[in-house]
């Protein structure tokens, strides 16, 4: 499990829509909205890093969401799993070809 404390940046007029969009995801919990309605504080909980990255990529596709910034990660479970040898960190994505693929779209 990886937990991320993140801030979602939005245009004030899209704040409500964005909040609704975020709430549709069971991995996301909305905690607070700034007074200027430009920032939404959320906690994201995912099984692993890959899922987190996928989720953020998907979120950014929404028009109402401008950007997501992760401010803090909590991943002691993940570390524990790796240390115990129950999980082997995946290194896909590091290869040249996949990086190329990612950057090209």
């Amino acid at each position, binding site marked *: 499990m*990886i937990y991320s404390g993140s801030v979602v940046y939005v245009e004030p007029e899209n704040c409500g829509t964005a909040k609704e969009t975020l709430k549709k995801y*069971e991995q996301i*919990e909305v905690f607070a909205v700034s007074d200027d309605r430009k920032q939404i504080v959320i906690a994201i909980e995912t099984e692993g*890093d890959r899922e987190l990255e*996928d*989720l953020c*990529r*998907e979120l950014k596709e929404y028009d109402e969401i401008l950007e997501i910034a992760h401010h803090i990660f909590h991943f002691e479970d993940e570390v524990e799993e790796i240390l115990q040898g129950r999980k082997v960190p995946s290194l896909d*994505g590091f290869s040249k070809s996949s990086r190329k693929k990612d950057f090209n779209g």
Partner: protein
Amino acid sequence: MAKKVMVFVIMMMLLAFAGAYAKGKSVHPEKMGSQDCMECHADVTPEIAQQWEHSAHGFVGVKCQVCHGDEKNFVKTPTNDTCQGCHALQVDNNTSPATSCATCHKAHNFTIHKAHDYNPTDVK
């Protein structure tokens, strides 16, 4: 020291790659035919099957399909509406209703009797 390395690896991964999965309705990855869940899952997910067997849900026969449905109405992570069926009070009292119960309460190995380290008996 080792921990730090792993943290670094994870951070690298977070920054470096991305996949291309679309989020959607959960889909059971296999056709189930006329089989019961456990007929396959005892083999394909033996740990989960065993955890379940020794859990409170296992003892009282709350089987896979009760929470996960079957291939027609499959849910990967049961929603709180599912849990509410039996644990209405707990769902009502949930301090964080937007969070799925299953996030913390791993239904497959949740037992009320951990303290006693109880195992199913094989009575003679």
